[in-house]
């Protein structure tokens, strides 16, 4: 079962910065700039980066909350590879049965006027699946599956009657009820308490196995990404700078940004002395960026080659470990 489910080719998303009412935009934020990756069925790809890296935008592009500026997103829908970036109308709606999203904020992602039943049943209602009784049945099953037992006691609660962890479980139930093949999880645990977080993490891993769901797991927390993803992609200012097997990338990082990122993560052990991250400067916004390497002004290893050449391409340095750097 190692067929490719998602294939992203040269995906770009630029947001215009308009000045004034009638002037045409000349400044664009290159939120996602020419990225390429694939996700195989059953695996989970972790997308990590800091703010402004473009990871959330990528997630939204993959569920078509945003339309790409250019590039293709190819997904296996009902056995056929479809470019979802240009879908409209009915076919867009049908595509939505296969891709769902879990949001970051458990407090905001549920309609406060909907009961748990309404929220979880909504995808079924919108997609016209089943009648009322069948939906009730499926919702109850789903609630049990995400650990909200007994389901009957949760069906008619409102979000303000639930805790953060419970709300996130409801969000997961909603995402999985129409049995999508691909789920984008946008920092689903970052707003939860630590002791609740692990429960949700394990729930997602468990369900991935049981229901055969493929994940794109977006997070800024490398430690969480280590547990939730089999492959890891590191983004910086709209570009993927490193990609590979999670353990490989974390233990043997090749790109200077990845190395800096890893050395910046605090370790829960007072005995451990972290090296100082090899990075200078501060993160900026990718507004009309120059064609050179995105990481140039922060890299401590930059040489003349880096200054004179365009942004390095993402290349396989062996064993599926991709890096975009001239110095490797």
């Amino acid at each position, binding site marked *: 079962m190692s067929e490719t489910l998602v294939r992203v080719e040269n995906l770009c998303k630029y947001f215009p910065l308009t000045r004034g009412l009638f002037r045409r935009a000349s400044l664009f934020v290159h939120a996602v700039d020419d990225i390429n990756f694939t996700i195989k069925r059953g695996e989970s790809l972790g997308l990590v980066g*800091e*703010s402004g890296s473009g990871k959330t935008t990528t997630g939204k592009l993959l569920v078509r909350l945003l339309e790409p500026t250019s590039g293709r997103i190819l997904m296996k829908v009902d056995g056929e590879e479809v470019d979802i970036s240009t879908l409209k109308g009915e076919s867009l709606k049908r595509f939505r049965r296969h891709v769902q999203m879990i949001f970051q904020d458990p407090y905001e992602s549920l309609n406060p006027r909907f009961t748990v039943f309404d929220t979880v049943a909504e995808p079924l209602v919108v997609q016209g699946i089943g009648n009322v009784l069948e939906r009730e049945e499926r919702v109850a099953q789903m609630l049990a599956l995400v650990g909200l037992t007994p389901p009957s006691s949760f069906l008619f609660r409102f979000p303000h009657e639930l*805790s953060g*962890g419970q709300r996130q479980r409801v969000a997961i139930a909603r995402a999985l009820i129409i049995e999508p093949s691909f789920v984008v999880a946008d920092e689903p645990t970052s707003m939860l*308490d*630590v*002791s*609740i*977080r*692990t*429960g949700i*993490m*394990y729930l997602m891993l468990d369900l991935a196995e049981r229901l055969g769901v493929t994940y794109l797991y977006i997070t*800024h927390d*490398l*430690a*969480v990404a*280590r*547990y939730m993803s089999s492959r890891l992609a590191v983004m910086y200012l709209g570009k993927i700078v490193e990609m590979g097997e999670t*353990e490989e990338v*974390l233990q043997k990082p090749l790109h200077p940004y990845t190395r*800096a*990122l*890893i*050395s*910046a*993560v*605090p*370790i*829960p*052990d*007072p*005995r*451990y002395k*972290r090296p*100082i*991250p090899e*990075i200078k400067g*501060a*993160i900026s916004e990718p507004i009309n960026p120059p064609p050179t390497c995105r990481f140039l002004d922060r890299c401590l290893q930059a040489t003349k080659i880096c200054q004179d050449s365009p942004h390095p391409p993402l290349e396989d340095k062996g064993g599926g470990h991709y890096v975009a750097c001239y110095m490797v």
Partner: protein
Amino acid sequence: MAESILKIENFTMHYMTKAGEVSAVDNVSLEIRKGESLGLVGESGCGKTSLAISIMKLLPENAVIKGGHIYFDGTDLVPLSEDEMRRFRWRRISMIFQAAMNSLNPVYRVSDQIIEAMETHFGNIDYSEAREKVANLFRLVGLDPKFMDQYPHEYSGGMRQRAVIAMALACEPDLIIADEPTTALDVIVQDNILRELKALQEKLGTTMIYISHDIAVIAEVSHRIGIMYAGKLVELADAEEIFHHPIHPYTAGLMSAFPSIIGPKRELVTIPGEPPDLLNPPSGCRFHPRCQYATEVCREKEPEFKDYGSGHMASCWNPLEG
């Protein structure tokens, strides 16, 4: 042996709400020595922020101190009036709030805000002297003084955090309470700020209290660590002791629930259940409903907060063997 600068004795504070009395901080005792940094760890609702604002006496209207003492450099802060407390706030104890962006007034320049803070506490100071001080503070926290006269919205998140730290240092306080100082920041900026806070502390000898839900951050910056749960201080010890020889099951659970990017990929432990409702906290030991070692006595009586040797304090009926 450095003298103790803050001594909290059996401090209890409740919030009066429409639904009832919320037992936010219950019978907490701890001591911090001068120049030391104490990290307070706990999940949301555990009382760490409530304890912090109690020390500063920045309590909301519905907060009631039910008992106990907070001795700061010998003076009990609890019975002090607002006027008397003002002599301590910012001048001797200052605080870096969570979401520091909100501490900065958007309509004033950053330099003016810091100078105003200094004027309030030092009385009239020479303006150019004050500006010199602000420039020094900026350099201290890693900000280029050329940004001094800008407005807060022109700063990035990391810069604002540093500005707030500079403001907290402006009056040269003896004690700084930092409530989640780096939570909203990217990890590289966080690293920078944590290093600077540590360096500052060593340089100025300021006593610090760090509050965070992130035990990794606390591990890096604290000499001593206190674990709070449901309004109670359940364990207090040197940083290494807490991590490698935890006594309280909650502490051990918390350690094991934290993923780490180094070392072998071990199984993460989930602590079952949820933090309790403080309107009606569990009887006896507040952690007993979620504790796998709970016994009858845990349900009935609250364990004593006692010393297990070399300053390692914990309150548990069934302490873990280190």
